[in-house]
């Protein structure tokens, strides 16, 4: 008999440390002789050239060890993100990946750009010394929109990107610079089919610049040790790729670059690569033998780490009068911020997730981005999909209203399903119960009852309901590399050391992996120890992004553990003189012949004798079968089993003030199989807070000179516990995925899209007005009510 832990609501393997406060993050690291490294950033200028840096006075401050300018550190350029490692080199050119960031920059491209650094005995000394550094700048014009920076006379951000065009769909790979395909029957595109449509809807939307705001501030510790190895500790999402990037940046072979992952205090894409690791490492190289810690302040987070892609997003859709979707034509122009980083990724994905949702006859979406003098844009949970949700799900509702069709029924009829293409052409859905999700969520939300109830309302407080569906992905195959390595070492006492790089961002990845290992072997959870977060020990893994931890990491774990089990059974079959197929192993690790329990052997004995293998003089033989058992898997995914989900939301709008109160949210997610249900729910609940923030309250604001006006929690407003609606998450497991490990699909990023689209639709329902600018603030709502001269009875 085996006791299964997959699917059970067990405590997470790492919770107790965190509850007690004994869990250590990068900022808690204390090392002998540790120095503090301060990055001096351009705070006054968002766009400037650095003319001179004078360290004279700073160097005199007691306790200052070294001052470093742009020429005192590696001259290699880098890109914070690991993307270039995940595509073949030829594709890098297609995507136009560049590495134009430097540890310290002479061309300042955004407020917060790093200019120089100070290494001192402690942070306070570094701060006081920093005040004495004299930097002369030559200010340059500031560009805050794509429109401004694409002007022909605009200052060029980098010679590698003429016209400040940071990214676009390269026509060599994307004909017409668009993602999409003509109608297979007629070979026509949207503009040709438009005259044949009975209803056409379109609008121009604006998406806001929002920030991940993970609670752990960015921190990296680095040490160039006495063996000539560069060691770096931080909480990146992508440990192995960052090891490679750092090795490249400092011209080191991988054998001399060690990367250790500290506990990740939240990431959400902000750590999809490097943040201050380059600076910590550059400083460590300057003071060999002494560790240097670089710890960013909270206010640096908004101006010196990456944000979501804001921009202008146009979309047009055409339908037949019976609701048949004919075409969708769209264009997203993003405001890239100061550096290339994820120049193309989120824009491409925004288009891709349009492709993955509904059965359009033809779809075409263009995407491009232009540099602006703001924090660089990178990855934020959803990666283009939240933007698409805000736009696509609203237009669908507008269309359904014009068509006189029920928007829920329309979605049920026209969303893609098994056999249809997903976000990526050529990859079809493997499993789907979106209709099951819609039905159960609608029922629990009481959608139809509320529709009736709110049909006639009076007074200033108006209720509105809205819904939205979404599709995402589980890992990024085949667009990006998917590769995870796992070694399952069988200890001599028959417990497992699972050596696998698994990025747990609080997501529960460590727990899920260990659960899957335990269930594969049929052994107790306590017998599995996960050794992770050390590049010296762990084989390759991409890291946590594209919602891949369970879907792409799990199979490696399972394969490696199955190998251990197989080797044990093979040895047992020799020792018991039975066929492998006739053997079974229970949770107590006894291997016996099926139906003949007396013919058995303890797997512990096999494990012990494999290591402690003695020669028996009497028999002239070794005792037991020699060799320590180890299972190994180098797993490359061959699908991405996109999950889908449905969200229903209820809001109350005060039409006299424009204020929105969140009443209820129900999200049903087609998870396939929830390995650790509380973690899946946790992802969907937490992501809802982020999606709701994007659609209602969050926005990074800038003045005309490119200064961020709200780089603090005081004025960057996220929803708090009193602002959240009554939220219910339903995990739908009626359609286990045939490919995903134990039937599982992803959930990490899925959480944001439904809340965004459904709340935007709910506000439209409550007010009778459409809002195309996010966030939908009371100011915007009231202004539109007044502009349209609407009075509510």
């Amino acid at each position, binding site marked *: 008999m085996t006791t299964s832990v997959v699917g059970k609501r067990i405590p997470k393997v790492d919770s107790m440390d965190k509850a007690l406060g004994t869990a250590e993050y990068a900022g808690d690291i204390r090392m002998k002789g540790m120095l503090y490294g301060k990055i001096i950033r351009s*705070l006054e200028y968002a766009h400037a050239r650095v003319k001179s840096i004078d360290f004279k006075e700073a160097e005199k401050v007691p306790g200052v060890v070294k001052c470093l300018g742009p020429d005192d550190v590696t001259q290699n350029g880098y890109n914070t993100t690991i993307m270039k490692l995940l595509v073949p080199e030829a594709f890098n050119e297609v995507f136009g990946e560049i590495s134009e960031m430097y540890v310290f920059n002479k061309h300042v491209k955004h407020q917060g750009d790093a200019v120089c650094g100070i290494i001192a005995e402690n*942070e*306070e000394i570094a*701060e*006081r010394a*920093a*005040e004495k550094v004299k930097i002369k700048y030559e200010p340059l014009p500031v560009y805050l929109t794509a429109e401004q920076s694409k002007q022909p006379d605009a200052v060029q951000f980098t010679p590698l990107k003429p016209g400040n065009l940071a990214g676009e769909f390269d026509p060599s790979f994307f004909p017409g610079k668009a993602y999409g395909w003509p109608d297979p029957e007629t070979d026509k595109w949207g503009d040709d089919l438009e005259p044949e449509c009975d209803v056409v809807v379109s609008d121009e939307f604006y998406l806001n610049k929002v920030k991940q705001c993970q609670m752990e501030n960015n921190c990296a510790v680095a040490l160039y040790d006495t063996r000539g190895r560069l060691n770096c500790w931080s909480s990146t999402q992508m440990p192995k790729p960052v090891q490679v990037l750092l090795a490249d940046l400092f011209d080191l072979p991988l054998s001399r670059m060690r990367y250790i992952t500290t506990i990740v205090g939240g990431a959400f894409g902000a750590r999809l690569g490097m943040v201050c690791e380059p600076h910590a490492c550059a400083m460590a190289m300057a003071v060999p033998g002494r560790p240097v810690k670089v*710890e960013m*302040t*909270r*206010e640096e987070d908004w101006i010196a780490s990456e944000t979501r892609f804001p921009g202008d997003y146009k979309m047009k859709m055409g339908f037949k009068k019976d609701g048949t979707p004919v075409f969708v034509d769209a264009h997203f122009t993003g405001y890239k911020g100061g550096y290339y980083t994820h120049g193309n990724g989120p824009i491409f994905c925004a288009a891709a997730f349009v492709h993955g949702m509904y059965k359009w006859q033809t779809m075409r979406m263009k995407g491009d981005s232009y540099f602006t003098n703001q924090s660089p844009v990178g990855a934020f949970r959803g990666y283009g999909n939240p933007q698409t949700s805000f736009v696509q799900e609203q237009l669908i509702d507008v269309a359904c209203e014009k068509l006189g069709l029920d928007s829920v029924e329309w979605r049920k009829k026209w969303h893609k399903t098994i056999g249809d293409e997903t976000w990526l052409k050529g990859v079809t859905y493997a499993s789907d119960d979106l209709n099951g999700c819609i039905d159960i969520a609608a029922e629990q939300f009481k959608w139809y009852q509320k529709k009736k109830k709110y049909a006639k309302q009076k007074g200033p407080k108006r209720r509105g309901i809205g819904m939205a569906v979404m599709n995402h992905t589980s890992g990024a195959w085949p667009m990006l590399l998917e590769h995870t390595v796992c070694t399952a070492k069988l200890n001599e006492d028959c417990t497992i050391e699972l050596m696998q790089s698994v990025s747990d961002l609080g997501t529960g990845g460590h727990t899920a992996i260990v659960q899957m290992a335990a269930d594969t072997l049929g052994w107790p959870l306590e017998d599995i120890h996960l050794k992770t977060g050390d590049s010296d020990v762990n084989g390759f893994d991409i890291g946590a992004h594209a919602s891949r931890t369970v879907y792409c990491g799990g199979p490696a774990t399972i394969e490696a553990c199955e190998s251990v089990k197989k080797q044990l059974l093979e040895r047992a079959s020799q020792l018991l003189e039975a066929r492998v197929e006739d053997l079974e192993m229970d949770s107590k690790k006894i291997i016996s012949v099926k139906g003949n329990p007396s013919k058995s052997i303890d797997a512990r004995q096999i494990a012990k004798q494999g290591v402690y293998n003695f020669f028996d003089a009497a028999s002239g033989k070794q005792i037991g079968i020699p060799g320590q058992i180890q299972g190994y898997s180098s797993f490359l995914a061959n699908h991405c089993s996109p999950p889908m989900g449905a969200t229903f939301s209820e809001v109350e709008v005060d039409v*006299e*003030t*424009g*204020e929105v109160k969140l009443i209820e949210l129900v999200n049903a997610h087609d998870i396939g199989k929830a390995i650790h249900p509380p973690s899946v729910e946790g992802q969907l609940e937490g992501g809802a807070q982020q999606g709701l923030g994007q659609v209602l*309250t969050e926005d990074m*604001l800038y003045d005309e000179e490119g200064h961020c*006006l*709200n780089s*603090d929690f*005081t*004025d960057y*407003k*996220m*929803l*708090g516990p*009193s*602002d959240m609606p009554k939220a219910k998450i339903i995990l739908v497991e009626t359609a286990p995925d045939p490919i995903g490990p134990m039937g599982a699909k992803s959930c990490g990023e899925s959480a944001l899209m439904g809340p965004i689209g459904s709340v935007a639709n709910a506000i439209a329902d409550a007010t009778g007005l459409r809002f195309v600018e996010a966030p939908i*603030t*009371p*100011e915007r709502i*009231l*202004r539109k009510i*007044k502009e349209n001269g609407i009075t509510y009875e």
Partner: protein
Amino acid sequence: MPSSRILPEFDLLLPESVAEAVKMLKKHKAKATVMAGGTDVIVSATQGFCTPCVISLAKIKGLDSVKYSKSGGLKIGAMATLQTVADNADVKKHYPALHKSAAINGTPQTRNSGTVVGNVMRASPSGDCACALLALGAKVVFEGPKGKREVSLDDFFIDYKKTDRKPDELAVEIKVPVPKKGQVSAFNRMNRTTLDLSKLNAAVCLIVERGVCKSARIAMGAVAPKTVRLVDSENLLKGQKINASVLEAISASVGSQIDPITDVRSTAEYRKEVSPVLVRRTIEEAVA
């Protein structure tokens, strides 16, 4: 450069009596900042605003009391925290506007450290307690080298973060008069999320007898460089029955008495549009 982790260096003085504090203020004057709970002073310091010297009242005994009497009214000591005031049964009963402005201000942590007197001394135009106390007709009591001085809040707020306090004076107490017969009060604010500084706030204190408003005090914050009274609106209420047409007239009167700006929290247009709604709802709440 300002840092939220490393404060600028300053001299921290810890007087053990009011007299000692006054002596220090006489010596340092504007070079010293008085710190009660610290929630405002330290935040300012993280933003780079700090004087060479900070005088903390932490060691002075007897400044943290909240006392109410039928004859003397309410006395709030300089070190009485927002939570102490919010918890006080007399405050809740007799001064609902003040109770609410303290109870919903900030977070449990900042209410446990921050003080009502500090909120008033800060003179931020969006100060919640300042707004409620202005409507309630409160006075600040100072101790200085020349002795005690009382200032009505009507005269205390002069301009943006500028008050009538002299650099050598220490605010030791805020006094709120005994509620008159028929006195009702209410406070409301608007913000972006529950935890937020106010983008708009309003407080009213009315004397109502048999449905007729005998006198009114209406205060608003975040609509001018300082917390203000809407005197024209107050006059419209005087002697009137509080009915729909009076409330309409009051709503119409609000706009000309305020001059809001656009800032990171809201727009001038929105504040102007919504202020009448807020005032009207606050009056309705007071008399409900």
